[in-house]
Structure formats: structure tokens, C-alpha cells
């Protein structure tokens, strides 16, 4: 009797492993498969991560949060689920980028974000807060540089601009909208001058 139970347990376990492997292979093909297949073997993963990167002087450069991080040992690439990148430059307004998923290369030096990508720049006394929305975004967090070829929506205060493609340099504090720009500038509101 005991041997039979053990056999069944082994069969169930083996089936579960096979099913999981199959699902993961399908997931890679459908989603980030292109990058991750090239990225090599997974050597570890982590859930609920919060990483802080520092500059040579020990000052925080940016923080990275994600529900799940999968690391590929041979290439040092990472896949991220629900990532959130937060710039920490003391001399620049805080910029945050979130997405459904992301693929990082070269130890996070470049990020490719996908799905409901939202980048926000905090407002200050001189400027209203700003928000960028798109479906795909590439970022170099060290340089505070973000760009995309996809349709993008930019909201600064109450003003909204849409475009095909964008380049956002948060160090130079310059946003370039590349093609087919359409904007809406509402009239001044008596109760709310620079609303978020």
C-alpha cells in the first residue's frame, strides 16, 4: 500500500513539473520570450524586490521595485514583473516609471518596459507635475533618459499632447515629441491654475 502511494505521488509530482515547464515555455514564447530565450539560463529569482543603486560617492541613483525578478546568470539580464523605477537624483525632480513588465540588460543599465507604461515627474513651485503614458518604453535609468517609438500621451498640468514617438531627457529636462503631434490646452481655470 505504501509503495503504491509513493508511486502515485511521484507521478503527480512529475506531471506537475512537466506542466509547469510547458507553461513556462509557452509564456516565454508569448511574452518576453525573445529576450529571455537569448538571455540564458535562470540562476535565481526573487519576489517583492526593492533594490537601490548607488553612485561612486555612495549617493542613491535610483530604486527599483518589482513583484518578481528573474535573473539570467550568463547574460546578467533580468525579467521584471510589475516594475517600478524611481530616480533618486537630489538635483533633479523625482521621476517614477511603472509598467506591467520589463526586461533589463547589462545589469539593469537599460530597461525595456512594456504594457501600461506610466512615467511621472513630480511638480514643484515653477512647474506642474507631468505624466507620460505609452505601451512601450526604453529607459537608461543612470542617465534619466526615456524614449519610445510607440504612441505616447504627455500631460503637463492640464495640457495634454499626443504623439507618435517620444524622447525624454530628464537631465536636460527636455521632451521631444517626434511625429504627428496633437495637443489640447484648456483655458485658464479660475479655481485651479496648474492642476495635477
Amino acid at each position, binding site marked *: 500500500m505504501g509503495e503504491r502511494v509513493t508511486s502515485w505521488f511521484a507521478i503527480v509530482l512529475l506531471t506537475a513539473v512537466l506542466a509547469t515547464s510547458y507553461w513556462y515555455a509557452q509564456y516565454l514564447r508569448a511574452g518576453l520570450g525573445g529576450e529571455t530565450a537569448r538571455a540564458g539560463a535562470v540562476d535565481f529569482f526573487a519576489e517583492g524586490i526593492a533594490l537601490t543603486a548607488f553612485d561612486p560617492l555612495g549617493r542613491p541613483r535610483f530604486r527599483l521595485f518589482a513583484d518578481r525578478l528573474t535573473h539570467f546568470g550568463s547574460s546578467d539580464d533580468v525579467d521584471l514583473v510589475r516594475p517600478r523605477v524611481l530616480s533618486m537624483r537630489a538635483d533633479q525632480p523625482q521621476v517614477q516609471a511603472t509598467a506591467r513588465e520589463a526586461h533589463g540588460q547589462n545589469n539593469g543599465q537599460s530597461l525595456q518596459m512594456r504594457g501600461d507604461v506610466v512615467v511621472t515627474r513630480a511638480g514643484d513651485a515653477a512647474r506642474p507635475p*507631468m505624466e507620460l503614458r505609452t505601451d512601450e518604453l526604453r529607459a537608461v535609468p543612470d542617465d534619466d533618459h526615456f524614449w519610445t517609438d510607440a504612441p505616447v500621451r504627455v500631460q503637463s498640468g492640464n495640457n495634454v499632447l499626443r504623439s507618435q514617438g517620444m524622447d525624454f531627457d530628464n537631465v536636460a*529636462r527636455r521632451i521631444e*515629441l517626434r*511625429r504627428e*503631434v496633437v*495637443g489640447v*490646452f484648456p*483655458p485658464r481655470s479660475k479655481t485651479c*491654475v*496648474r492642476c495635477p
Partner: protein
Amino acid sequence: MRSMPLSFPVRTHAAALAAALALAAAAPAWPESADRYKEANVTADHSTLDDLHQIEVLTGHVVLIKGTMRMGGDRMEHRQDERGYHHYVVTAEGGGLATFHERRDTVRPGVESTIDGFAERIEYDDQEDRVVLERRALVKRLENGELRDELSGVRIVYDARKATYDVDGRSVEGADGRVHIRIAPRSGAPGEPAKPGGAPLTPERALPEGTR
């Protein structure tokens, strides 16, 4: 006897202003008053936002529509001041002219009055609701598509709230110092289009000494 359009050059700023005010009095139609409270819709090929100074530069086939108001050109600078008012500067490239168009509030039933402006540089802000046309500036007022009045000079300021013009021929070095105003006949047959030309007047001879 048929009335002819009047066309006369005006040498001085003050005289031009007086003539323009007279012109405004002769045409008591007000600009589309709701325009300044409407949102502006812009289209362009390309845009760069200077996030530090909050200045946006749109380039390539720029068109701005705000109610009945329409501005067009090759380049437009837009900024919103700390009180929330919008400021626009439209320019043209390659020897072309930026354009401005606005419909005015209807005063007489059945008569639609519009303003068309052309210049190398056109500036508008919705705080003053004022249009400044600079360099090769030309403003035309039309009724039901027919030309009624025409002004040209180096600089024309069109106050949309007061429906007045301030015309200056001397603002830029090298200009001929003359402002040209043409007033179409008011007593012509209904529907008869205003014709260009007409007997030129020389009002500078009649201006009092010392008028600038």
C-alpha cells in the same frame, strides 16, 4: 454715383491709431467673445518641450484652433504663465506669412464678420485677448466673405476685446514708415463686393504739426 473704396497711407503711429479707432467705430462688430474661454487644439509635425522653462516649441504645419479662432504657421512657441494664461507666438519660414482668422460676434442679422491677419510673426495671449502681428502685417475684415476693410503696416495690434486696431509703420528699421488703410464703401449695393484700389488719400498733409 457709386462709392469707391478709400485707400490711404498714414505716416504716423498716432494717426494710424486714430484711423484704426475710427475704423473700429465704423465696424462695431465684436470678436467671438466665447473664443478666449474655449480650449485650444493644436496639431504639428514635431514638438519639443523645455521642461525647465515650460516653453513648448511646435514645428511643421502648425495649426491652432480655439473656438472660431485659427492660427497657422511653420513654428509656434507656447507657454503658460504662473497664473495659467496661455501665450502663443506663431512664425513662418522661407519668406511665408503666419496666419490668423477669427469670426466676430454677430451684430447685424445675416451678416457674418470675420478677421483675417497675415504677418511674419503673430502673437496671441488669452489674458489680454490681443493679437500682435509684426513684419509685413496685413489685416482684413470681411463681411459674408466680402472685403470691407484692410490695414497693412509693420506692426498691427488687434485688441479682440475692444475690436480695435493699433497700426504702426515705424517699429522696425528699414520700414517705409507708412501704414496703409483701405475702407470699403458702406453705401454700395447690397452684396456688391468691395473692390481694391480707389482714390488714394494723403492724410499726412492734413495732420497737425507735432503729431508723432
